[in-house]
């Protein structure tokens, strides 16, 4: 499984993401710079977290309109897996690869802490290393993670099993509707999530609950 990590001005979680992908797949990902429109042939493209283009206008809004995102959109349409974490999730919704929007946290505060996630759908390319209904630990660090979608969209994504991760009871850090923490597109090959699984993949992190997501996406689940 070959993977790639997108690098844009202002993204700062790219190193953590590269480390996680390298450790879990045994192979370093290639990197994609903002000006590239010729995306290398990979199985998984990851857009990491940070503050692309200073979060100007709206989080992810400027990045979503860069040519590199058009190229990633074409790859996603061709079936390549795309994972967006934190600012990466914001970029994916702004680019229209995922439904809904991410708004300012209901508390108006930046949250940086550990929460719990419920694996609501363990039957996706990004979650099959987990058990259905499993509760995992995961760090969050964001100011705009309050997921919103109109009633019709919400019905559709809930009905299609597109909600993959929910904040477990009592741990919703941002006021997101239906406690949504991560969703996939209808086709199931694009996942966006606010929490940072790349920051909980080994003993040095204090746990490895995030590992299952990469093991699923990179297809390296131990038998």
């Amino acid at each position, binding site marked *: 499984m070959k993977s790639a990590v997108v690098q844009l001005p202002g993204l700062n979680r790219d190193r953590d993401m590269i480390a996680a992908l390298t450790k879990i797949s045994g192979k370093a990902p290639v990197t994609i710079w903002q000006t590239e429109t010729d995306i290398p042939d990979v199985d998984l493209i990851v857009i990491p977290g940070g503050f692309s283009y200073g979060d100007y*206008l*709206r989080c992810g*809004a400027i990045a979503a*309109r860069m040519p590199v995102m058009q190229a990633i959109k074409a790859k996603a349409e061709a079936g390549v897996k795309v994972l967006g974490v934190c600012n990466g999730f914001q970029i994916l*919704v*702004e680019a229209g690869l995922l*439904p*809904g*929007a991410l*708004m*300012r*946290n*209901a*508390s*108006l505060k930046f949250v940086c802490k550990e929460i719990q996630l419920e694996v609501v759908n363990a039957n996706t390319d990004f979650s099959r290393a987990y058990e259905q209904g499993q509760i995992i630990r995961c760090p969050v660090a964001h100011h705009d993670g*309050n997921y*919103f*979608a*109109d009633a019709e969209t919400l019905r559709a994504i809930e009905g299609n099993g597109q909600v993959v991760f929910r904040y477990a009871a009592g741990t919703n850090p941002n*006021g997101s509707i239906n406690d949504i923490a991560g969703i996939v597109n209808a086709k199931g090959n694009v996942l966006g999530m606010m929490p940072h699984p790349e920051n909980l993949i080994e003993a040095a992190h204090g746990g490895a609950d995030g590992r299952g997501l990469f093991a699923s996406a990179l297809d390296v689940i131990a038998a």
Partner: protein
Amino acid sequence: MINARVTVTLKNGVLDPQGKAIEGALGALGFDSIGHVRQGKVFDLQIDTADKTKAEADLKAMCEKLLANTVIENYTIALD
């Protein structure tokens, strides 16, 4: 040159935590008459054309493509 002002506001039904916080702060300052507050954005743009119809069409496209996130926001365009 045409001067335009684009106003972007949250759609009805979309929770606006910043508006709520401002509403609370105005109440705390003693403005008892304060009702609901919604926060939005204003963009002042110069469009290099004399053709108002073209400017309006361009501004609409700019709103749809970038200035507003139409999932959660509405926009209005006013020309000078």
